[in-house]
């Protein structure tokens, strides 16, 4: 028995009929074709599927699409303020070589967004602790930490670093 849901994703409203058991990550990837959000583990350890739901980071492999009904979701595709301009967190991951294979990166960036929202000036230890829900197998994390520190600096010195089209805030 399908259910109708209305979800705003990256600023755009979608009305869909979904099976109640459909995971949010599969809704984003397979119904809306937003494939930037990845599935890494199915058991909410790895964080590759992290998105913002109503402004808070969630692991979209452990949220049902029906639970997002009426909500607003921001994915990696909606983080940049415009097509021409990267979000400072994205730019910092590039600048500091905070990614290699890139598979964990969208989730890592979304988790970093949540981290910096609650703590705009984190120490190295706070960043490492704050990202404990996200696993990266390639980088050994050091350049991810540097990227988040760099992004924090950028975001503090610019007047605002809004989430782009998502408008989750």
């Amino acid at each position, binding site marked *: 028995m399908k259910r109708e849901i209305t979800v705003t994703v990256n600023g755009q409203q979608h009305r869909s009929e979904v099976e109640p058991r459909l995971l949010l990550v599969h809704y984003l990837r397979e119904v809306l074709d937003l494939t930037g959000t990845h599935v*890494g583990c199915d*058991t909410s350890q790895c964080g590759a599927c992290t998105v913002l739901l109503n402004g808070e980071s969630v692991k979209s492999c452990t949220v049902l699409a029906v639970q997002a009904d009426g909500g607003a979701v921001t994915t990696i595709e909606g983080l940049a303020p415009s097509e021409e301009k990267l979000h400072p967190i*994205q730019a910092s991951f*590039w600048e500091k070589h905070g990614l*290699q294979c*890139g598979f*964990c990166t969208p989730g890592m960036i979304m988790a970093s967004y949540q981290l910096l929202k609650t703590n705009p000036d984190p120490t190295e230890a706070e960043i490492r602790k704050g990202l*404990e829900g996200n696993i990266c*197998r390639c980088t050994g*994390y050091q350049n991810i930490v540097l990227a988040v520190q760099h992004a924090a600096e950028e975001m503090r010195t610019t007047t605002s670093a809004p989430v782009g089209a998502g408008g989750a805030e």
Partner: protein
Amino acid sequence: MGIAALVGSPVKRREDPRLITGQATYVDDIKLASMLHMSVLRSPYGHAHINSIDTTAARQHPGVVAVYTAEDLKGIVGSIPVAVPVGHIAEGMGVRGPLAEGKVRFYGDPVAVVIASDRYVARDARDLIEVDYEPLPAAVDVEKAMQPGAPLLYEDFGTNVVLSSHPDSADIDAVFARTVADGGFTLKARFVNQRLAPMPMETRGVVAQFNKADKKLTVWSSSQIPHLLRNLLASQLGLPQHQVHVIVPEVGGGFGCKLNVYPEELVASFATMKLGRPVKWIEDRSENMAATIHGRDQVDYVDVAATKEGKIAAVKIHGISDLGSYSQIFTDVIMIAFGFPVSCGSYDIPNMHFSFDLVFTNKVPTDAYRGAGRPEATYLIERVIDLVAREASKDPADVRKLNFIQPDQFPYKSAAGAVYDTGDYEPALDKAMGMIGYQELRAEQARRRASGDKKLLGLGISSYIEICGFGPKGTAPVGLYESARMRVEQSGTVMVYTGASPHGQGEETTFAQIVAEDYGIPLEQVVILHGDTDSTPEGRGTYGSRTTAVGGSAVYTAAQRLKEKMKQIASHMLEASVDDIALEDGKFSVSGSPQKSVTFNEVALTANLSNTLHPSIEPGLETTVFWEPQACVFPFGTHICAVEVDRDTGEAKIVRYVAVDDCGRQLNPLIIEGQVHGGIAQGVGQAMFEGVEYGEDGQLLTASLMDYAMPYAHELPHYELSSTITLTPVNPLGVKGVGEAGTIGSTPAVASAVADALNVAHVDMPFKPEKLWKVIHQQ
């Protein structure tokens, strides 16, 4: 301008914009019209007979298009290939069909597949397949599996041992006796490299599409070696090679596990050929734990003879390699072909003796995982050096220096068989010791030991080497060259098609740097293409830290060939002798009269468009190079780790980590640093956290990331890196390799530091608090 002028510059990666914005295409992002989804039913037992399989209910489930078992594939789909079949494997032992037939041999062994309209339906139907299993006792512990009376995986062979080699040791035994007679000592040890999961964050996955009209099979796969997959799909499915096209899209990490060809790639291809509709299979994480190859799993018994000063006279190694249940492509040769040859490490050890057993057990097959054989060999020899130092009451740094191969000994043929290209080991050790403040930390350790401090401090050194750049002629059953096809288009754009196939290493950036630097043109003018068997020349792929040394050399050589042709065209354009033409900063000019010049782009345009080229010159600018190394390369370095172990809890924490690596010339220091970071993290993971565990019945106990301890950010240290640079004459770039160095170097450094903190000779990995607490409190 030659390669000598190539300055290693930390160019930001060109791959990243698509990766940080969610616009990269991994295999699960591919969606084709009328695509079906495959789900795999796997064995819930480590070892069992299959009495019967009833697929009736699954077939009748709405949305199901097909269900296949081994019966359906018989005579149509071939087996998983083995590169170098040794011992009983050459007689058919351990050869793996695409689906289990008659028997399952590990938890996760694929038994049947369901093809359905969507992935949820495919899973629902999978659970409706009824298999009548007769569980059997399992052979799990490798040393027990070798014994007579152990449960047998392959009854026809009467043993689980594939190959056993115990050559006569009289000569080396005489060295042992002589060393003792001269006042030296001997020691024995047993080392275990536990089983690890490679665990790329993207699991395996495949999309297979057969066009019945063209009779062409297109396969998108998360693979490290597209041409190997193409060639084997063709041979195992009975298709001519030109009817198979493999495309490797973005790959979310490999670490060796994706260089193999797996049953699911064959079965999905079979299914699309039967059904005429595309078939997608994406491995879930638990399947990845249960059915993708594991790494390591080796037990070594070692005997050492050394002088009383700590100079090693002889080493005897008995290696036991746990192959798991079947032979994948390199399963049987990881230890003997990649590990044993580098068993001397960076040390001048005059006498080595090897014996070994290769043994099947009821576990996932083992194969190449980052380092593949070399981490095990390095762990062994670095631990040996520490044991010798302890026995000789010397500092482990001094014993390393006493035993190092000296710079004037290169090229050096080791007693283990490998010929080392270049090396200078002591400066890297000195640099690392200086960076970490070795003497100060030793003094601090002495203070803490004297005062009975609750935080036990330990220091561990690893002066590793590795062998990479595979491989020279005659070292493998096939030529291990790498290819590059290069075309300079009329716009001046340089198109490079490489046979190597990256999965995070950044070769789109590094390879472009090689060409752009050499031609003096902007990086943006060079396009690097890879991972498509219809457009790239036959290649050997990315593994074994070979891509820059071998693939980069192919690119460089292709660039030289086209440059020579462009010089000829320029010489006609400038009416000068070709010998007087030089290319610098994107301009061909005449030596002695620099005002006479034509740009790189003008020559490109002329070569491609002009109808007045000199009659001796063929139009166009295109070449294909297959670059085959004449020898392997041997990167090296020293890692030093300082750990604190809490006496009350047994918890170990890395407090400092210093790494000095020498990978020859550095093309892109930013990328090299990233490779070292990630490598260290994986090596530290083995030492501190990771381990695949099976129960005695063959049940997988670490079947998800809830149970397998992947290192998190807060569990890993800050790495302090530096380097030395020792060039190699083996390739024109002077590069060695760095992809696996961190993993190889780090594990023994951590292991030595923990043993040193506890002031014991040796503790087996991983260093979980409970284990260390028991050692501290002698429980």
